[in-house]
């Protein structure tokens, strides 16, 4: 999807932002390629919103520089930057109709009335709101407001788009629907997009690359698959999905490669098989490891079951897709856990 990865559209060069004694962003360096969908993911207080505010021009960096298309924009106020922003609260102008809201960015760019009308009509149709142009924002549902906000951000064809927790205010079903819609809009417009969110599912679904932030610094930057499958640190492993950290275990961990120092072993819950103790041996014993434990708890979650299995002093989380003929274990049952040695990952502690 990256049109021109050679040419970075947005570049952060050792950017630091402090508010009094608090450092919100520390020495952040980051590039976003042309046409890329990059998500900044992190818990609250990790500095992700500050990063977005810096990029949008609502805040100026304390140190370092931000370049857009190769030019420093640290001193350029936000209204002179060519950008589209979707705000968390949508920030639709309550005193203007949907049409007037969509016309606003075009007017500010001095586009004539006839052209504005055509573009607004086309855009409204594109986001399936063709009949809603005359409505006030307060007369729209949450999902419709979200689509107007997106349309307003994209209508002037800005070279890049910023999304601040774009789907945070929607309910679950609507969120999934909007994720699909945003993905198709991004494909169609090819706008470089930077999205800030704390919702890992949103990040995994939408992004070409994800930046995980923690305490004002980048923890890891990678594609969604790589980030989930090969997290660099314990924090990333735990923040993105669930992780079993294999530390202080009462068994010898068998691994293919030697464990680098300063790391801990980790395995994802869905990589562990849970079977009855007598059915343990699967043949390819040289590639697998099996241990025994006791079921502490079983949580039923629709298509999958989650077990908490006590092994010595530690508790393993095991996630299993519900399939026909599978045995169901109850708290107190003795079970056998086994996994492929190649599924063990080493992450920085």
């Amino acid at each position, binding site marked *: 999807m990256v049109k021109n990865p050679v040419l970075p559209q947005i570049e952060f060069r050792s950017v630091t932002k402090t508010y009094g004694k608090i450092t919100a962003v520390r020495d952040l360096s980051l590039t976003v390629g042309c046409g890329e969908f990059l998500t900044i993911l992190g818990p609250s207080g990790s500095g992700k919103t500050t990063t977005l505010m810096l990029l949008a*021009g*609502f805040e100026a960096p304390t140190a370092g520089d931000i370049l857009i298309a190769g030019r420093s924009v640290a001193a350029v106020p*936000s*209204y002179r930057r060519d950008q*589209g922003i979707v705000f968390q609260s949508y920030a639709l*102008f309550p005193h203007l109709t949907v049409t007037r809201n969509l016309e*606003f*960015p075009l007017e500010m760019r001095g586009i004539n009335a006839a052209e504005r009308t055509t573009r607004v009509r086309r855009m409204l149709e594109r986001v399936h709101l063709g009949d809603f142009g005359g409505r006030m924002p*307060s007369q729209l549902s949450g999902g419709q407001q979200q689509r107007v906000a997106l349309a307003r951000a994209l209508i002037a064809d800005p070279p890049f788009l910023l999304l601040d927790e774009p789907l945070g205010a929607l309910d679950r079903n609507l969120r999934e629907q909007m994720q699909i819609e945003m993905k198709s809009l991004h494909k169609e417009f090819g706008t470089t997009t930077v999205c800030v969110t704390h919702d890992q599912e949103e990040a995994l679904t939408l992004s070409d690359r994800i930046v995980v932030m923690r305490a004002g610094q980048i923890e890891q930057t990678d594609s969604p698959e790589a980030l989930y499958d090969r997290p660099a640190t314990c924090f990333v492993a735990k923040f993105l999905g669930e992780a079993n950290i294999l530390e202080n275990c009462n068994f010898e961990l068998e691994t293919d490669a030697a464990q680098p120092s300063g790391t801990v072993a980790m395995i994802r819950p869905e990589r562990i098989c849970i079977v009855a103790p007598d059915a343990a041996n699967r043949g390819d014993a040289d590639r697998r490891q099996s241990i025994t434990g006791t079921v502490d708890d079983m949580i039923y979650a629709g298509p999958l079951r989650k077990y908490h299995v006590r092994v010595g002093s530690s508790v393993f989380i095991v996630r299993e897709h519900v399939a026909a003929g599978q045995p169901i274990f109850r708290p107190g049952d003795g079970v056998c856990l086994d996994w492929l040695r190649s599924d063990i990952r080493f992450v920085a502690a």
Partner: protein
Amino acid sequence: MKIFQKLGQMPIGLTVPAFAILLIVFGMPIILLFLSSINAPAFSVTNYYKFFSQPANVRVLFQTIEVSVLATGMCLIVGYPTAYLIVTASKRVRLTLIALVIIPYLTSGLARTYAWIVILGDRGVINNLLLHLGVIHSPLPLIYNRTAVYIGMVHIMLPLMILPLVSAMMGIDRSLMAAARSMGARPLAAFWRVFFPLSLPGVRSGSLLVFVFCLGFYITPAALGGLRDAMLSTFIAAQVTSSFEISKIATSAFILLAIAVAVLSMLGLNLAGAQGRAATSAPRSWVVRLPIFAMRKHYFSEFPNRYRAKLWTTQLYQAGGNSRLSNIVGAVFVLIVMVYLLSPGLIVVIMSFSAGTFLEFPPSGVSLQWYRSFFGDPSWNGAAWTSIQIGIAVAILSTVVGTLAAYGLNRTHPRLRGFLTMTILTPVTIPVIVVGIATYLGLVNLGLIGSKTGIVLAQSLGAIGIVVVIVSATLANLDRTLEQAAKSMRAGPLQTFLRVTLPLIRPGVIGGAVFAFLHSFDEVVITSLVSGYSIRTLPLKMWENIRNQIDPTIAAVASLLMLVPVLWLIVLYLMWWRARPRDHHTLSELAT
């Protein structure tokens, strides 16, 4: 370099016009006044010593404090239950009652004081009625004594007490009372342990407003009281007109100011509890003083889908239970208070149509003679025209300057904002007579005494404060991301302000302009000091008339003056109402 850049970006510069007016017309003179009260550069307290060594002065001072404290106490005793009953009433009744309290609040104090003269006077409504019925044979001495002063002052101040109380009480989360009840608190216990403590901020702002107002507003005591009921403010005003001895006036003014500041800081600290709240208490109290905004906000929150939930919490909310008796007692109480608030005005309006040669109630016939006399007499309609001109000038000046200042303050660092807002509001938070003296001195220095420009500047001091409060309240509710959104779409600062901010705060700006006009149209204390006998505004002409000869034309003028705020209220209501259907529409749509 960085610091300069930051300062340049700060919109604090927008407050410069407001502070320039404040400093020149009020700030510097009040410092000069203080210096002359301590005999600068000799620096001595002789003037204060002289003041306190005269028993007459001390008596007037104590009398001033006594009258102010008692009037405030009476307002609280009448106002708290009234406010409580208003808040617990059903929605429609509540809105009606609030409107009925706001109407006298917006009506000229002078006109309402005049109404009491008409009612209590020797040939007034009550005496005439009693004489007519044969109950008494000579008029009762109802007027020109302390009782009359209290009746008049409590009448004038009561809205000032009720409205902040209502605003504070409506802000109390109703579920808290339900929670207290669910935890086994009896209705009365729930009231004392939960509701009453939460309503204290309203008690504080109401009491402060009334007390400070009492200290400086000498019109009512002077009109309704006897010679022995003089207030310190009356003394000060008299000294300005008789012998302008600046150090003596300055001393009296600063003693009055000291009392006000002492009470402001005492109540502010004790009741507010938390630190720093004292600093914001004054602006807040003024925010709630103009409670149409609060009313409007609450109005929107009461939409039908939540009706059922509201219904049962309202029942829980009523502390006194739901016995029929308590309902009747409450209704009678509110009725009496409303009659007290509204009947004087009504009586004057009715009498203004009387056909006789004297004012009589009930009128023996209907005629428009006093209105004809008002419109035919150049001294009356000339004064009205002057007032309108000055009012419009004040409204324009203070709306522009005040809106700019409010916008600048809104974008300033919170700590600095609190301080600067307090400073801008000084002319409306200290006794008005002190502002009048300082302004007089300021305009003397500018050579503007007795000029329209001078009066406009003097009245704008308070009007700017009012505009700042109203516009700030509107700005505080403005979602800042809307401005960011506009900027992200390439709208510059000016375009953002004109296209997004201004349309969204327009109700506040127009409301500010209306209140600025009303402030000017009703101002008499400061104006009488700075007019220098050469300019007659309508309130001045009225005041003169009340004191010297009672020309029945004044009834017509008072009626017209009562009409003005009602008209404005309708204008404001229509404007806000026009903005309402959109929201309303949505709600009904969402409900279906």
